[in-house]
């Protein structure tokens, strides 16, 4: 039966005309038979014909309904609707173009942000069976861990990893890795790439196949490996080597040491960390080659590795966790790092636990960007809603213009459903075109968005995301296009067909009460627009003020003219006892450069996130509050513009042979030294059991400075002199204050360093860039929410302007009558403004309410401003009142110019 209907339908589509003719003939026959019948009953021919005609009704209508029987008519009608919609869209090219572009931008922006959020949150790792992956880490990583922390996710020491790998049975395979900055240039200016230390079976366990050559395997990762192998990331291989297959078998210099290039990883595999990528992967066994005496492999208190395991078939995260808990005691006892007894005790009672990791693990990217991305997505969605409201208003106004056409069609027997479908077809076409445009746009918009997240400094690792479209992104984009279509298309499609054709045809359409539902819809849309855009403006202002608070906050430095130079001289193989002397010569050389006011060294450059912390001991009691430590050379505070409040700066005389001294900041003096006169007081640093804790005498007091980040409060910091360093590193961070920083200075610094040590590598960056890098998230939020806020406010203003303009045209005759009856211009103005004022007021009240409810969801992202900050709320409202007044005053003034004679002659 089904098939029969299908065939009949297809035949119907093809031989439509002969069918129609048959039907016509049949109907004629029907009429003739009816007439004959009635004449037989005694009617005259005329009367019989009339009666038969009335009985039959409109032959066209009958034809239509017969035609509707088969499914093919639905196809045909759909095609008709589409053609009709295309024609009417072509008649209004301006409106059509504006709508499509608006939709493309709106949907595109939403999809772009969603793509990024998807990459940050949902995207499974491009490895074999990612759902089997679980991360292994200590159940409570804040307990029992002391020492040095390096890499982005330092959760294992090498000793702990090595023991774990040998003992564990919870996983069919386990891998460890650590990200590190690696310098590709042998001397002169440094070129950093993103290095990745990986355990030998890293690629095997993950099931990643090489793009070229071979990937690393167990034999590459043997302790003490001599000629290590290296694998390139795909993007790096393309960028640096132009995708040349001949690189296999050549060697690459990493921090000046040769590594054999054995293969290239596939394009989509960029590591296991969300938002990050790697350029070069090398086996963990090669780490001592680069770091030698500071090797992390040999140091039990060096935390640097991240560990992921592949669950054995049939196992689960819970089963793995219980296995890990059972093996933990022996594992931790066998790998205790050196340190105070209480920390060691906490370490030995720690436990490992497994956590799902199918979407990768995150160092910072997911934590830092996920919530901001959702906030931005919400903001972009609100902008899209406002845009839809605008489009709906435009279409409603157009529907009013077409009112008569629609009324005529209704009167001629068109079904209401059919008219709604036709009007909806226009919206569907617009949404489809907008969606297609959005699909084209969203790729470049996401790329641009990722560009906003890039840093350019010591946070050497840039962010990278796999933005390839996947089913979630496609579903999101399509769903959004459909929703927008309903949002802007439904009201304009349904409302015009509601009114009675008779009323409209009487010609009084302009002032008839039939227009009321549409006027109400338009007013409602304007209120929604004002409310939503006010919400966005408040949000934007809060983020902008946060950014401003952070950039103008007192950080204790004046770094406008300060440049950071990292001088790495490990290739020069300078013996430890000569390094302080080399540092002194370097500072001297840099300090004498033309235009340079001062130069000083610092162990941890502030605001890079590097830290050295501990609890000092005063009068034999360990202080409860954690302090930060740093090591600086004489002149550091002067270079950084930090005020010396009391005492003295370090001098070259504070050397290894003199007593140990320290300079503390105001917070340290207040919180740790307890308010006693800081100069001359002493404190001790904690030491390993058995060792004598060194005692330091405070010789200077400086103003508070930020250390970890701009968002943190001032912390207690103690500074030690650079030239009392017992184990100098093979690199030194120098801060240089120069009148004119820039490219010229970079070259001068590079040359000066080369004069002191030919084999040194230098990396130069303005300090301001460092600060800018630490504000990437805040800048992103402020910038995008600001753009969204401005666009939303503009759209809402246009909406209000449009509705007042329209009301004025609609009520021209009424205004004319009022003026003729003696209304003053001010009366007319007030009449026109009353409506818009009411809408604005309602919109502002609703918007403020919405803002009050929603801003607290991102309160944690605000700095120095409350989510309900009264000035922000008041300022945004005041701006809206002013803008709305202007937007409605201009068209309302036109109403006062209405000439009653002209207006009344109308029609």
């Amino acid at each position: 039966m089904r098939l029969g209907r299908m065939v009949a339908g297809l035949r119907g589509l093809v031989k439509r005309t002969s069918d129609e003719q048959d039907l016509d003939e049949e109907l004629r026959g029907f009429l003739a038979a009816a007439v004959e019948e009635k004449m037989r009953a005694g009617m005259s021919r005329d009367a019989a014909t009339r009666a038969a005609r009335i009985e039959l009704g409109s032959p066209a209508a009958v034809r239509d309904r017969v035609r509707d029987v088969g499914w093919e008519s639905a196809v045909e009608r759909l095609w008709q609707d589409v053609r009709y919609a295309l024609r009417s869209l072509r008649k209004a090219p301006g409106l059509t173009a504006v709508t499509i572009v608006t939709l493309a931008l709106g949907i595109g922006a939403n999809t772009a942000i969603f793509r990024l959020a998807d990459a940050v949150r949902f995207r499974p790792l491009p490895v074999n069976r990612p759902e089997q992956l679980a991360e292994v880490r200590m159940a409570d990583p804040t307990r029992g861990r002391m020492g040095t922390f390096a890499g982005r996710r330092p959760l294992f020491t090498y000793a702990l990893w090595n023991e774990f790998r040998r003992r564990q049975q919870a996983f069919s395979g386990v891998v460890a890795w650590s990200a590190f900055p690696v310098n590709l240039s042998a001397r002169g200016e440094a070129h950093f790439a993103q290095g990745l230390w990986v355990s030998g079976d890293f690629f095997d366990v993950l099931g990643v196949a090489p793009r070229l050559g071979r990937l690393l395997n167990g034999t590459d990762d043997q302790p003490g490996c001599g000629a290590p192998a290296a694998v390139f990331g795909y993007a790096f291989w393309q960028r640096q080597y132009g995708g040349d297959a001949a690189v296999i078998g050549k060697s690459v210099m990493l921090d000046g040491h040769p590594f054999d290039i054995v293969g290239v990883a596939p394009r989509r595999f960029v590591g296991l960390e969300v938002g990050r990528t790697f350029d070069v992967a090398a086996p963990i066994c090669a780490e001592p080659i680069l770091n030698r005496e500071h090797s992390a492999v040999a140091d039990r208190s060096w935390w640097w590795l991240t560990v992921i395991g592949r669950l054995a078939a049939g196992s689960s995260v819970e089963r793995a966790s219980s296995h890990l808990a059972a093996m933990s005691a022996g594992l931790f006892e066998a790998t205790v790092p050196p340190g105070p007894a209480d920390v060691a005790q906490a370490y030995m009672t720690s436990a490992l636990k497994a956590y799902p990791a199918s979407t990768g693990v995150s160092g910072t990217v997911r934590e830092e960007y996920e919530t901001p991305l959702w906030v931005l997505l919400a903001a972009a969605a609100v902008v899209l809603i406002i845009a839809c409201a605008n489009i709906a208003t435009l279409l409603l106004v157009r529907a009013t213009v077409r009112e008569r056409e629609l009324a005529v069609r209704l009167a001629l027997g068109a079904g209401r459903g059919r008219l709604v479908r036709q009007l909806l077809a226009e919206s569907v076409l617009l949404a489809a075109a907008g969606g297609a445009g959005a699909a084209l746009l969203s790729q470049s918009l996401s790329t641009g968005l990722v560009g906003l997240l890039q840093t350019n400094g010591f946070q050497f690792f840039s962010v990278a995301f796999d933005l390839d479209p996947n089913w979630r992104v496609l579903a999101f984009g399509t769903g959004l296009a459909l929703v927008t279509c309903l949002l802007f298309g439904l009201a304009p499609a349904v409302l015009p067909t509601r009114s009675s054709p008779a009323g409209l045809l009487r010609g009084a359409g302009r002032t008839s009460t039939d227009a009321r539902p549409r006027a109400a819809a338009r007013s409602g849309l304007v209120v929604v627009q004002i409310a939503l855009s006010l919400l966005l403006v408040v949000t934007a202002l809060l983020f902008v003020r946060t950014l401003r608070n952070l950039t103008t906050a007192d950080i204790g430095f004046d770094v406008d003219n300060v440049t950071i130079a990292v001088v790495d001289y490990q290739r020069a193989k300078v013996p430890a006892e000569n390094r302080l002397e080399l540092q002194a010569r370097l500072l001297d050389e840099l300090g004498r450069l033309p235009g340079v006011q001062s130069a000083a060294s610092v162990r941890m450059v502030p605001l890079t996130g590097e830290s050295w912390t501990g609890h000092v001991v005063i009068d034999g009691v360990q202080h409860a509050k954690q302090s930060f430590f740093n090591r600086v050379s004489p002149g550091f505070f002067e270079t950084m513009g930090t005020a010396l409040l009391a005492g003295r700066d370090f001098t070259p005389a504070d050397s290894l042979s003199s007593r140990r001294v320290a300079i503390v900041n105001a917070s340290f003096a207040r919180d740790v030294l307890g308010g006693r006169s800081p100069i001359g007081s002493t404190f001790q640093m904690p030491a390993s059991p058995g060792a004598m804790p060194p005692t330091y005498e405070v010789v200077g007091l400086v103003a508070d400075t930020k250390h970890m980040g701009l968002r943190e409060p001032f912390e207690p910091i103690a500074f030690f002199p650079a030239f009392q360093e017992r184990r100098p590193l093979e690199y030194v961070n120098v801060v240089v204050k120069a009148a004119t920083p820039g490219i010229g200075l970079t070259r001068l610094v590079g040359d000066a360093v080369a004069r002191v040590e030919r084999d040194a590598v230098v990396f130069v960056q303005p300090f301001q860039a460092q600060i800018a890098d630490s504000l990437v998230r805040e800048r992103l939020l402020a910038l995008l929410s600001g753009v969204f806020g401005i666009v939303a406010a503009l759209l809402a203003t246009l909406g209000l302007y449009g509705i007042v303009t329209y009301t004025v045209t609609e009520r021209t005759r009424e205004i004319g009558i009022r003026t003729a009856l003696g209304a003053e211009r001010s009366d007319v103005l007030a009449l026109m403004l009353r409506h818009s004022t009411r809408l604005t007021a309602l919109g502002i009240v609703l918007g403020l309410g919405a803002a009050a409810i929603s801003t607290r969801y991102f309160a944690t992202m605000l700095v120095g401003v409350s989510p309900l900050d009264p000035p922000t709320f008041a300022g945004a409202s005041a701006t809206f009142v002013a803008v709305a007044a202007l937007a409605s005053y201009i068209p309302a003034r036109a109403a006062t110019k209405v000439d009653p004679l002209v207006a009344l002659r109308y029609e």
Partner: protein
Amino acid sequence: MATDDKPSGLVQGTLYMLILKTLSLEPMHGYGIGVRLEQISKGVFQVNAGSLFPALRRLERDGLISGEWLVTENNRRAKCYSLTAQGRAKLRREARDWEVQTTAIARIMQAARGEV
């Protein structure tokens, strides 16, 4: 203009059955079917062209009736409909179902208190 699909008072779907029944008596053209339905029902059902022709088209589509162009006594071409074998089978089924249903409905409508 009428927008409802079925003649007033006709239970949904019964028009098809009534047409099939009418045609099972003798092949007939469109007007004749309408008149016959009205006559047999003693004027209770008046089927207008707007309902009749779509119904005929659907039945023809479904292969239950077939149309044939004949010349009438007045020398006019008219499409004459007759039941197909399929249509006859369908009519038997429908009539049986109808019987069962009306009996059941009648029983419910005549039910005394406490029975329902």
